């Protein structure tokens, strides 16, 4: 095992991606809170981290857990975003970025996380699996189901 890099390196390299995932998972308004919780938890655990092989996957796993905690704390109520039907039907224009993420935010947690990790962070299936704590096949399935649902809603 090589020495752990200064924690600042993790922020420099991955903070933007963690924020993007969280925006996808909990929405723009709550992403900052989850971002703080994610990195505070990471800092707390960091000196005892045994394996520094995949720090990015480790951070995204924590972010995913914080997003789930956030949804639990909110009693699993749907995200305070526009009604998807309304969003998709209101305009003939292609749905803009925020609209897409609002739809992603309304997906079930696993699908939502898989889609965010894939398209906001550009992670390969193996890393999505590591972040979600499931097999690559299961990650692929979640991603597939999530995309299918999004396509249906955008159709």
């Amino acid at each position, binding site marked *: 095992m090589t*020495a752990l*890099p*200064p*924690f*600042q390196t993790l*922020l420099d390299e991955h903070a933007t991606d963690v924020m993007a995932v969280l925006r996808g998972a909990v929405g723009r308004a709550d992403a900052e809170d989850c*971002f*703080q919780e994610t990195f*505070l938890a990471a800092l707390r655990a960091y000196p005892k981290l045994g394996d520094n092989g995949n720090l990015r996957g480790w951070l995204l796993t924590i972010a995913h857990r914080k997003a789930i905690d956030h949804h639990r704390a909110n009693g699993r109520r749907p995200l305070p975003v526009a009604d998807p039907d309304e969003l998709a039907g209101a305009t003939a224009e292609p749905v803009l970025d925020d609209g897409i993420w609002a739809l992603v935010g309304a997906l079930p947690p696993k699908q939502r996380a898989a889609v965010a990790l894939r398209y906001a962070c550009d992670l390969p299936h193996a890393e999505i699996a590591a972040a979600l704590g499931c097999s690559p096949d299961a990650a692929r399935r979640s991603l597939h189901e999530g995309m299918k649902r999004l396509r249906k809603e955008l159709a």
Partner: protein
Amino acid sequence: MKAELEHLAVRAAAEGLLDVAYASVDSPYGPLLVATTPRGLVKVSLPAYDPEETLEDLAARISPRVLEAPARLDEVRRQLDNYFDGRLREFDLPLDWQLSKGFRRRALRAIDRIPYGKTRSYTQIAASAGNERAVRAAGTACGSNPIPIVVPCHRVLRSGGALGGYGGGLPMKEALLEMERAGLP
């Protein structure tokens, strides 16, 4: 993202999770990297050194919880600015000596007492640290000084008055001595 990261550094410090805070400080000789622990200033890295290597070294020797947090080094920056402007003679900063041990630490504490504009020889420092024959070790202590400028190892010369060595390069040592001499009444 900047605001979020500043907020994170503040929260980390409040929760005792910020073991090493660092910042870059401009100087007439180039950027200095300065780092503090909750106990005090622990590192000043001169422009001749690679900041990334310095940070890796701090992560390995103190704690990997190393964050860029310029606000925590405002007072250090203010005193360094004033020193380089010739407006400050004596630093008044809490120091964390943990990066030096034993004889080296004693030698550095002796160096810390050399007044502004004055110089001492390596032999005098060796004697102050408790072993006047350990001249070479006194030189090594200067060379390994983790807090140069603030702990003024540039004020230590060879017995004949020759400059000796300096981690930041001899021109910088000479310039610091020159500035201090010019500032004396």
